[in-house]
């Protein structure tokens, strides 16, 4: 696998769309390209942000936040 092919696979990898047999080859290439590969995969995770930000924010109830903060403060004091 050359680096261009690795880049293609990386974008599939970060969204979990690589098939099992492709994953093995991908991991081999990931090792081969080392830091360059890790940097590129890290960049590809930016796609996650983009997909989430493409959605219209949904409203959640105030009770959820109240419950969360009560749990967090209790956990901190424990």
């Amino acid at each position, binding site marked *: 696998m050359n680096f*261009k092919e690795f*880049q*293609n696979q990386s*974008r*599939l990898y970060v*969204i*979990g*769309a*690589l*098939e099992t047999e492709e994953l093995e080859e991908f991991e081999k290439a990931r090792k081969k390209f080392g830091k*360059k590969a890790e*940097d*590129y995969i*890290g*960049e*590809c*995770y*930016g*796609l*996650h*942000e*983009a*997909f*989430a*930000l*493409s*959605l*219209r*924010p*949904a*409203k*959640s*109830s105030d009770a*959820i*936040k109240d*419950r*969360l*903060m009560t*749990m*967090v*403060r209790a*956990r*901190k004091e424990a």
Partner: protein
Amino acid sequence: MRITKSRTRPFSVTPQLEPGAPCDLALTKAIQAEDPDALSQLYDRYNGILKALILRVIHNEAEADDLLQEIFMEIWNQAKNFSSQKGKPLGWMVTLARRRAIDGLRKKQAYARAEERLQNETEQQPDAWVHNSTEEEIVLSDTRSLIRKVISGLPPAQQEAIDLAFFRGMSQREIAAKTNTPLGTVKTRLELGLKKIYDGLKELKGEL
């Protein structure tokens, strides 16, 4: 792809903050130091985005609320494991939320139910990627509208393949079966679509 340039300009589409507001990284570091107010601020900033993401996966309002609470609790508990060298806080939170939502969907074996709901919502929901005919009527934030512009520029088949992979956690084989499309075609659609989105977002970065 220009890797050298990428290294010096990390790929991110994080929306702009109001002047004086602490950045996501500062809030995450404060959470690592167990400051509940920082979590409260991060919640206010991103609960809407994360809930939208969860809803896109599980299509159930009450379950989405429960999961949202669990995810922010996990953010509080796992903040110490976050490393800014590996990415941005929002990316980390979205990855975590997506994984939890897809896990939740699978655990409940609710595919069939969600399928039916998704079908209904795809027909009704103006925010869906595919068949989005009323986008012009919606007032979108700058960031969102720019991202949506990139995504909506893809052919519908590529949008659908990415949507099923990202928001439903489907493998290429599952997408092929669901859309009655050859596996090779699904792979090509995903590769082409993701590359276009990736390249498009990099170009947009200067505008965000």
